[in-house]
């Protein structure tokens, strides 16, 4: 079954703390995992992505850790800022398949308090 699960549903951290958002999946054929950031009233925007050949991907304050054996990922946001307050979606697909359809989790709503 193609499912992507995210936890927690919502998360509140203080400015400067590290926020950790979790994601897991079931389909072992998934090999590409983008994370999207969505602000109210806007569409999702690609934040950072990782393929299954890597176990870590870093881009500034955002880092994905990937555990292929356990089918789990996590997004770490270090030095969280109030401007990071948004909903974060983990997505997955089989990279190289036709159609390029993404399977999305239901998101983590992050609130960063100043």
């Amino acid at each position, binding site marked *: 079954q193609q499912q992507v699960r995210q936890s927690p549903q919502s998360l509140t951290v203080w400015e400067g703390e590290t926020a950790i958002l979790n994601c897991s999946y079931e389909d072992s054929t998934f090999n590409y995992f983008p994370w999207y950031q969505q602000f109210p009233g806007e569409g*999702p*925007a690609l934040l950072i992505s990782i393929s299954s050949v890597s176990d870590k991907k870093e881009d500034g304050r955002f880092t994905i850790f990937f555990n292929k054996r356990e089918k789990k990922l996590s997004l770490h946001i270090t030095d969280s800022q109030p401007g990071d307050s948004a909903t974060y979606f983990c997505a997955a697909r089989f990279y190289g398949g*036709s159609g*390029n*359809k993404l399977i999305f989790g*239901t998101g983590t709503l992050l609130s960063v308090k100043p």
Partner: protein
Amino acid sequence: NSKVIQTPRYLVKGQGQKAKMRCIPEKGHPVVFWYQQNKNNEFKFLINFQNQEVLQQIDMTEKRFSAECPSNSPCSLEIQSSEAGDSALYLCASSFRQNSDYTFGSGTRLLVI
């Protein structure tokens, strides 16, 4: 400042009415996707195109939705007979290739009353 332009931003329709929304993909992106995002943040893939050709679509899209991406015109998604359960944010996205990352528009929020 999305490069994928969706219109209208908001759409209110009565049950049974047609609802039509449009999307201009990012320049140079021949692959277009439509997703439905409901109030529970569940994303449902509806249909995708490469140029004017349908690549994939779900059953619901085949039966009650119609979509097209004509050359030199905006892509469109139309619900033939709106139902209350169709109330959602409809997102259009485009990409350079089938396996490229894609860019989403800001969406059309449909309310069926």
